[in-house]
């Protein structure tokens, strides 16, 4: 006989789920335990394993649509079975279910009043409502809600689930009426952990653990400490209007398949500013200062095991498009862990952009052998006051330059940053 497939709670707090994908289509045979569809819950996308078997006769909730817990999402039955009756039934329940919530509440309140009146004839009805609704037998709404998420499990199964931090809702019960029993918990624990949503453990239970250092982590720690503890850093911060830059970028990208990145622009502007302030493109040599003959600009790329800074070499001689092309190759390599040492060693200047992470501004640690690093914040729409005290809304970002005071002083750093700011604000300036 055809039966409804209901949306189930796939996370402890889920109220509705969105069908992301149907793994079966109408007419397909479905085995019990097979993945019927993928459901996006409030937490994650989960696989919905069918508890029923037969033929998927009808999909009621399409991909991208949402269903509340207990809503029918499909009909399973025997191949070719007539679904008219069951569709009609579903239609009726739906109509009933979709009574606005307020109305239901009113109705319940009303029936509670009647109950109170019946029980204590002569009692003031309105006064009884509150007292009555506190009694468990009459608190209809909350009781129904509870039953919708009620899981049948033996006390031992509950205990074990709690001990192993397992969500009982995701364990299929093999006992009478689907009661979850010890053997089900044991079976669930043998499954790969990804299949089961882990509830956050009470903090006291998490034991401290030691994470061994990867080779990369060691190098980062050592180089960053060396830089921060030997180079006296100072920081210069400025707000830059980027409307013109954005416009320039939009113009450049118009009609291009491959969009030129903002970072490519920043690298090129930085290179041009470095060309005019070569003291920034330097390295502290202990007894001397080394001034580089090229602008080899590194850009920090985040990887799961630590950051790496692939370098676009000789940016003075390259245009933005060329820089962008090289940058894309380098970033691709970085993300695949395929960079060779020559790809990331020896940056004369470094840019770190955390804007895409929503970071407003930050101070970076200089990446040796360079003597400065530019930290780029998020682009935001901000009210700006111009010289005539007019307020207008501009796209802005905050640039923070970290400088090695041994190599150059505040004024030199400020002049460089001012140059860079002006170039970004009036891109044509680098032709001057």
């Amino acid at each position, binding site marked *: 006989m055809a039966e409804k497939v209901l949306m189930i709670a796939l996370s402890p707090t889920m109220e509705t789920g969105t069908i992301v994908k149907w793994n079966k289509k109408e007419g397909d045979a479905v085995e019990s335990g097979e993945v019927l569809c993928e459901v996006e819950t409030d937490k994650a996308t989960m696989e919905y394993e069918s508890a029923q078997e037969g033929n998927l006769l009808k999909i009621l909730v399409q991909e991208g649509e949402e269903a509340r817990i207990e809503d029918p999402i499909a009909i399973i039955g025997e191949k070719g079975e007539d679904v008219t009756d069951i569709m009609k039934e579903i239609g009726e329940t739906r109509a009933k279910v979709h009574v606005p919530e307020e109305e239901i509440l009113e109705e319940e309140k009303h029936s509670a009043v009647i109950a109170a009146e019946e029980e204590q004839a002569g009692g003031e009805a309105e006064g009884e409502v509150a007292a009555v609704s506190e009694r468990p037998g009459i608190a209809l709404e909350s009781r129904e809600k509870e039953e919708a998420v009620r899981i049948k499990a*033996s*006390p*031992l199964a*509950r*205990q074990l689930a709690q001990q192993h931090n397992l969500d009982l809702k995701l364990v299929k019960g093999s*006992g*009478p009426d689907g009661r979850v*029993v010890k053997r089900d918990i044991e079976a669930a624990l043998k499954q790969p952990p990804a299949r089961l949503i882990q509830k956050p453990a009470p903090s006291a239970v998490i034991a401290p653990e030691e994470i061994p250092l990867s080779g990369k982590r060691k190098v980062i720690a050592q180089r960053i400490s060396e830089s921060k503890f030997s180079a006296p850093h100072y920081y210069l911060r400025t707000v830059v209007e980027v409307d013109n830059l954005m416009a320039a970028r939009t113009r450049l990208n118009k009609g291009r398949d491959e969009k030129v990145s903002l970072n490519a622009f920043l690298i090129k502007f930085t290179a041009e500013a470095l060309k005019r302030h070569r003291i920034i493109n330097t390295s502290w040599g202990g007894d001397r200062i080394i001034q580089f003959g090229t602008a080899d600009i590194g850009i920090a790329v985040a990887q799961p095991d630590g950051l790496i800074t692939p370098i676009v070499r000789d940016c003075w001689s390259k245009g933005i498009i060329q820089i962008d092309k090289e940058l894309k190759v380098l970033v691709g390599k970085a993300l695949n862990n395929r960079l060779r040492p020559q790809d990331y060693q020896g940056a004369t200047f470094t840019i770190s952009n955390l804007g895409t992470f929503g970071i407003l501004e930050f101070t970076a640690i200089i990446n040796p052998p360079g003597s400065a690093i530019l930290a780029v914040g998020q682009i935001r729409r901000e009210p700006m006051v111009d010289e005539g005290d007019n307020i207008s809304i501009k796209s802005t970002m905050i640039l923070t330059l970290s400088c090695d005071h041994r190599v150059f002083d505040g004024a030199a750093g400020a002049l460089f940053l001012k140059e860079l700011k002006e170039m970004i604000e009036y891109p044509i300036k680098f032709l001057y």
Partner: protein
Amino acid sequence: MPTITFREALRQAMDEEMARDENVILLGEEVAQYNGAYKVSQGLLDKYGPKRVIDTPISEEGFTGIGIGAALAGLRPIVEWMTFSFSIQAMDQVINNAAKMRYMSGGQFAIPAVFRGPNGPAEYLSAQHSQALQSIYAHAPGLKVVAPSTPLDAKGLLKTAIRDDNPVIFLEAELMYSLKGDVPEEEYLIPFGKAAIRREGKDATVVGFSKPVTMVLTSADRLAKEGIEVEVIDLRSIRPLDEHTIYESVKKTNRCVIVDEAWPFTSVGSHIAWLVSKNCFDYLDAPVELVSSEDVPMPYNHRLELAAQPSVKKIESAVKKVLYIEQE
């Protein structure tokens, strides 16, 4: 170690205690000249004479009351009931006098009496003679209730009962009297309130007492052949009850079946099922099962008589139920 019958073990216990203490007397229907309706008191009249082994009229209320009076006066009577079904006559004496006297006299009086005899169904005895009445006696505070399942326990527990200064209800069974078992020659006592683990197992705990324990052990053997290892607990005494042993076992196996041949309603078995549910709640993987007699007067028809009582099959089925093993 000699192998003797349950009947002989009881006789030895009474003989030894009568020899040890001249205050111990035995009274009941046919206990003296006929040597006991079930020959439990064989030879005691010859040995201890008619002053200490006394035949009484067929009046349970009368001779039970005499026993209680004798206990109040300082003797240690053993009152034999021909069957517990007849003890219903004596219930006022036992529950209103024996069980209350120590309490109501503020400890001034003790009732060191034993009330013993066959309890529970035997065969072909119909409704009025086939009753397991432990629930009624265990219900009343002030009584100790003992229910051995082996000759060895019967002897050790009866000796302890005779020496106890409180009224003790001592449950035997017609069908157990010829049950054989090893009993040491040297003297020994078995304390009340200590259950015996008759068989160790990890899969389910089966709690029983008195005659059905043998049936439980048979079920356990059969289940073992299917790979199910049952832990069998023989309570030996119902009051005091060895709760600790039950709980430790259930905590290990997570499942519990109680076997009690009384009716299911408000029985010792249902009480233990409640205790286990309450005290082992978080350890239970299945509801506690109770194997009892059916809730009917005992039928005379033999097939129905057997069907109304616990059986090896019913115990096996209950064990499988708590293990969630599907059965036809």
